């Protein structure tokens, strides 16, 4: 039976510990977690915060498609993909990918695949707000 992944777009803080606790299948010998956080510098400029926005229905559809692809490619025992939108302060978690499997190789590979695919295919955008100067849409200007 195909694993049912957890896929969410949220506006509230992501509790990575709770997500890890949710992937507790007895068959999970490995759990690889990627956590994306808001960084305080980009191209040498001091960043104050990030504003994330999304095409909500398409973002969820694309995230589900990526999760399905991962569960078909690797023998996973758990998969969670959560992205936050709205205004995030420095150090806050913007995205979390958790891939559980029997052994470590599959969990590393699936986790890497999911975060890379998300960056390329999911309609989510971020606008950087700086200590000085106008904000900038990353990737577009």
């Amino acid at each position, binding site marked *: 039976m195909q694993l049912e992944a957890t896929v969410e777009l949220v506006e509230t803080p992501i509790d990575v510990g709770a997500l890890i606790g949710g992937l507790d299948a007895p068959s999970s010998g490995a759990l690889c977690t990627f956590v994306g956080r808001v960084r305080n510098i980009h191209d040498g400029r001091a960043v104050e915060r990030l504003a994330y926005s*999304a095409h909500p229905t398409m973002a969820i559809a694309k995230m589900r498609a990526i999760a399905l692809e991962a569960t078909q490619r690797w023998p996973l025992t758990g998969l969670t993909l959560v992205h936050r939108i709205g205004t995030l302060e420095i150090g806050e978690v913007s*995205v979390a990918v958790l891939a559980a499997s029997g052994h470590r190789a599959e969990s590393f590979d699936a986790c890497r695949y999911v975060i890379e695919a998300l960056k390329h295919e999911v309609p989510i*955008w*971020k606008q950087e707000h700086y200590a000085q100067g106008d904000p900038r849409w990353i*990737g577009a*200007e």
Partner: protein
Amino acid sequence: MSATESPWLARGVVRLFAVLADKQGADRVEVPIPPGSTARSVLERIARAHPALAPYIASCRLARDDEFLDADAVVRAGDDLSAIPPTAGG
């Protein structure tokens, strides 16, 4: 024949996001979508009609019903269309 059936008056709506919505000051634009229009031609029409968007439209993809469209895909005025700037999640 009613005005809405007239091909040169067939207007559609394209939803705008991120940098496009920011520059336009709106979350959608109306655009003529005559029969035979493609994803590419719709984006080109938006760029011509809205010069402020033109620099950003070039790197956008058009989506319908939550799926990216190929540039040559045929679209119609009633479709749920979205202009998708380069993604930058994570």
